């Protein structure tokens, strides 16, 4: 595998990681901590939204993120022909 192809694969990986970690940060640290009071003025059902993100929403997002990453990464592996058999 030549240098250029390897770099292209690695850059695609880093872009995906950066995207996922941004979502990770915004949903937990953003919604659940930094802007929790602002979001708490919004209500869904019996929850204040900021509190909901801190104790429920962030966890759901984490789970979805890992599955999304695994799925996208498998595609990137195949596109760059570095997938395992």
């Amino acid at each position, binding site marked *: *595998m030549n240098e250029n192809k390897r770099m292209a694969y690695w850059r695609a990986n880093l872009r995906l990681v950066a995207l996922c970690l941004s979502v990770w940060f915004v949903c937990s640290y953003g919604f659940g901590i930094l802007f929790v009071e602002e979001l708490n003025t919004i209500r869904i059902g019996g*929850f204040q939204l900021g509190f909901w993100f801190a*104790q429920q929403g962030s966890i759901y997002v984490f789970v979805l993120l*890992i599955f999304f990453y695994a799925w996208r990464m498998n595609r990137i592996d195949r596109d760059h022909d570095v*997938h395992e058999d």
Partner: protein
Amino acid sequence: MSLQLLTWIVVGLSFLLYIAIAIWSRAHNTGDFYIAGKSVSPLANGMATAADWMSAASFISMAGLIAFLGYDGSVYLMGWTGGYVLLALLLAPYLRKFGKFTVPEFIAERYYSKAARIVAVICLIFISFTYVAGQMRGVGIVFSRFLELEIEWGLVLGMLVVFIYAVLGGMKGVTYTQVAQYCVLIFAYTVPAIFIAIQLTGNPIPQLAFGSEVDGSGMALLDKLNEIVTSLGFSEYTSGSKSRIDVFCITMALMAGTAGLPHVIVRFFTVPKVRDARISAGYALLFIAVLYTTAPAVGSMARYNLINTIQTGEVGAIDGNLAHDERPRWFNTWETTGLLKFEDKNGDGRVQYYNDTNPEFASQADQYGWRGNELTVDRDIMVLANPEIARLPDWVIALVAAGGIAAALSTAAGLLLVISAAISHDLIKGIFVPSISDRNELRAGRIAAAFAILVAGYLGFDPPGWVAQVVAFAFGLAAASLFPAILMGIFFKRINREGAIAGMLTGLLFTYGYIEYFKGLFLKWSGAPWGTNTAEHWILGISPEGIGVVGMCLNFLVAFAVSGITKPPPEHIQHMVERIRVPRH
């Protein structure tokens, strides 16, 4: 049938199951013993990781912790789940590609240094023993409460079972027992939660129930809870009292610490492929999330139930509080364990539970004729007492006992294995006797595991006063030392031996020093620590629980600075990094 007999039967059956699995899947060589022959399916590994990760603290303590902390408890919920995102995206697939046995082994090869390996082994052993002491204690508590066995005998029984399946089965045996233990613990956790959710709100799904209306009041559970707790002088349940920067840092330290815990990382060495490591982390977090999204619901419902039991009428009315003579049965049983304490300070024979440390509420309480809070509740009993508080049938109570033991044993076994691998593989084979044969290394691993069980049992039997303190240290340490070292090893080719060692030592010493200063660990654990452990004395308002983040940043800074002024890693190391970044080449 008596509750105790029923509990013995349920717990005994679960033990038989674990031992049978261990015999069926025992280890034949070091590959089986350390990493289950790299043959575990991603789904099974996800389940085993979830059981490995969810300890006695998650099962027994966490919901109770959240019940009393309210919003501030979110640091544990986000911190102990968000770390898996870091693990899945930044560490697990690459370490799997590296394809060796232990975490210190990666650090040793990537930084071409035995010194780095020894630093990593020290971190690993300290983190793991801290953890394991808490697990053995958890086993002891469950045995003594539900089976009325002396704590010591409970411990011995627990040690014996772990001994059989960890020493015999190694990672292979532990993996499949953990799968069974996950099933036991998650069933035991969710069944009472569902019953309580139905009783309180009519909605059977705890995650939704805790945002629903309380039956017959027309108010949402959390609003109702806010109203009651503030009327008793506590801060609102849905808003916390910790500073924002502290909540931020504790969450970050727990996340990075989770991703850096050796017994969790090593689970991703057991799957066949890089692709499996990624998806397996997803399954692991999914299985963990079942408990972690139920826990805050259980926490809020338990707090509500507890206050309702005690504050039977209007706050401040003479007959508004529970008369101690009329207390329910569970109140009585937990009083005998000493985990629930009542002291009739104003001599009216009734239980007053309120926040007597709130100066704004003091005059109000005085008017009511209250002379201080009379009830001390150990947070550990909230989950264990739940089925009794909700008057659930005896088999549910027996199940909760078996679940608590499963949670503690599964984590203990995982920890004992990484300790034994660090000794037999990293120290004996890696440093002292490189020529050791596979058979002898396997034997050394088994002896090390047996020895670690004895130490763990001792720590659980006679826990040093500082066990609770060091848990914060375990995460801070993992966040400040192992996590950055592994991360930089994968993502930054230019980081060299000098940089990595200097970085790890800086992170380690800074974090250790800060916690030692404010909480006292080794040097002053018998007396008071040097510093006053309050917000105005902390650096930037960051508590010792969250300081691992600063240690982590220092680690990165020092590693980059030192690597920049020393010569780059040798050619073959740079090639190795390129290799682990690609699943196939």
